[in-house]
């Protein structure tokens, strides 16, 4: 075994343990400067960005191929966020192969002339299945570097690397860590039965979580992303399962009647759920081990679908107490309940925005379901979906910029995403069967 081989093996071993990344360039990003994108603004102006094809260091066929795929992935991942207007490479004034990738060799005028406010360049090196990437984000008007990172890893890690970099980009521009480590749980009939699946924030890497061969519904994440609660007919009736995803243990709530619609209390090992063992569907507070702590609602008729405010001080839920299903908010300290929705005769599925100021829900008007958003003070009602089949089950991304939902716009139910102001509506993933009930996890979910 010669020296080079040993070196490569050591590098491989090292790469397989961790993807290293470091800001090790001479140029440094400007501190602060998170004001490029104001994510609290419901109508975000998309920032024009140019992404230059990565420069290949060795220029081998394999490297060129991987490099092209990776720069395309970077472009798709950033576009997914809805923050950017991607500038077509056909409009570039510089030849991709000749264009500089560091501040010293970039002619920023060539980029500002085509309206680009941001520029990403990359250097790509592939050898023996190990990749090394240098990625830079520039402000083309200020002509300086915002982020510079170098990453090492295996070729299979390129998606992970791109997400790490995109996460940095979003943090730099918004001051928010974004959605890049979040996951989405949902229900799919791919196997012929309704089962719970989990995919990455962008619909990639979908995996079947439950194998009940029964009807399984309503996934709900705990705040730390380690637990999922759901309802399943695995034992013949609608019971509530509380399950540790990684360690595969948990609890079962199988009282007489329905045991449904779980929602974890933010930051706690406790959840709200609707149980009907009393003869009437009421919302209860349960421990993470499935023990009833207390009634949260005491009202004849349907009380269902709890959704917590991010601080856990309020709970939105659906109640039929006024004759039709409407969204109500309960103040947890006082127990006081106020009705939130008054327009229409069917408003259900509340989802509380991560910032805490708005609630998304599904509303039926003229026989069609659409996603609406309303301020928690009852003002600012906006309809986000229009004339595109039925649209239900909204769920906010952890940074509050994207809403996932299910829709029949292309026939059967599938999962779509849109920005929080309703633009850029697109299908999230393609799987056999129907997909419903998307639930976005909070922040970082690491179940490895």
């Amino acid at each position, binding site marked *: 075994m010669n020296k080079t081989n040993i070196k490569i093996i050591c590098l491989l071993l090292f790469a397989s343990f961790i993807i290293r990344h470091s800001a090790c360039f001479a140029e440094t990003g400007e501190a602060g400067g998170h004001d490029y994108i104001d994510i609290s603004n419901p109508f975000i102006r998309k920032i024009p960005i140019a992404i230059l094809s990565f420069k290949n260091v060795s220029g081998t066929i394999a490297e060129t191929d991987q490099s092209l795929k990776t720069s395309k992935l970077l472009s798709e991942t950033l576009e997914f966020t809805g923050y950017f207007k991607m500038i077509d490479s056909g409009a570039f004034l510089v030849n991709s192969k000749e264009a500089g990738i560091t501040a010293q060799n970039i002619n920023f005028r060539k980029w500002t002339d085509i309206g680009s406010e941001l520029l990403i360049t990359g250097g790509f090196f592939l050898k023996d299945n190990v990749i090394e990437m240098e990625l830079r984000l520039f402000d083309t008007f200020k002509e300086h570097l915002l982020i510079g990172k170098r990453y090492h890893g295996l070729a299979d890690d390129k998606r992970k690397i791109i997400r790490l970099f995109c996460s940095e980009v979003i943090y730099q521009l918004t001051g928010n860590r974004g959605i890049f480590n979040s996951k989405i749980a949902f229900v799919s009939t791919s196997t012929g039965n309704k089962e719970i699946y989990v995919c990455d924030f962008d619909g990639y890497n979908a995996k079947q979580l439950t194998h009940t061969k029964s009807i399984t519904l309503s996934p709900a994440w705990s705040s730390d992303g380690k637990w999922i609660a759901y309802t399943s007919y695995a034992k*013949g009736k609608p019971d509530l399962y509380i399950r540790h995803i990684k360690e595969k243990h948990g609890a079962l709530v199988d009282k007489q*009647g329905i045991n449904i*619609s779980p929602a974890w209390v933010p930051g706690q090992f406790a959840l709200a759920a609707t149980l009907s063992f009393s003869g009437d569907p009421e919302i209860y507070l349960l421990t993470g081990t499935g023990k009833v702590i207390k009634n949260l609602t005491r009202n004849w008729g349907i009380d269902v679908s709890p959704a917590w405010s991010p601080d856990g001080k309020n709970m939105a839920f659906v109640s039929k107490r006024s004759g039709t*299903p409407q969204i109500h908010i309960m103040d947890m300290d006082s127990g006081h309940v106020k009705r939130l929705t008054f327009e229409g005769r069917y408003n*259900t599925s509340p989802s509380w925005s991560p910032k805490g100021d708005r609630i998304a829900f*599904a509303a*039926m008007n003229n*026989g069609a379901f659409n996603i609406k958003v309303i301020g928690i003070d009852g003002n600012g009602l906006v309809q986000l979906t229009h004339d595109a089949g039925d649209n239900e089950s909204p769920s906010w991304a952890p940074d509050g910029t994207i809403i996932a939902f299910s829709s029949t716009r292309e026939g059967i139910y599938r999962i779509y995403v849109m920005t929080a102001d309703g633009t850029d509506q697109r299908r999230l993933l393609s799987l056999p069967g129907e997909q419903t*009930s998307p639930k976005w996890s909070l922040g970082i979910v690491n179940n490895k």
Partner: protein
Amino acid sequence: MQKKMWLSLFLFLVIPGLLFTVSCAKKTVKPDASLTQEAEAEAARLAAQKAKEDEIAKQRAIKEERLTEENAKIAAKEQFLNKDIYFEFDKSSLLPTAQDILSDKAKWMRDNPDVSVTVEGHCDERGTIEYNLALGDRRAESARSFLIDLGVLSTRLKTISYGEECPTDPGHNQEAWAKNRRAHFVIE
């Protein structure tokens, strides 16, 4: 002595002959009596036959009755199992037709005291999955309460909600939805 023998012989041969003659003569001489006797025998025979036939007919009738009864029982059971009650959109209150059907079901349950029943609550596909699970629960509970009010023991009645998960008609139109908003009855 020989004379005695002849007499004996005479008696032996002739008297039966006479007797025979008498008997024949009887027929002719006393026709009424013999006719009556024969008719009586015939009547008795006929009566017996009729009685037998009647008995067979009766047996058959009983059998038939039993069969009809059994058929009726089966029919009643089938009706109990197959006749669903229907609801309006987003409602769990019982329509008059549903109440009539439930009255029949209560009677059947009173007639069949050993039977336990699960009431399934179902919804149409419109609306939220969770809300429909709760609505299906309310529908099954409405039907159960009504049966209890009509004298069925509460311990004989369970409920289960399937929400919108098990439509009986897979269509996506008013007709299908109307069929799917139902309570269905299952014998345990």
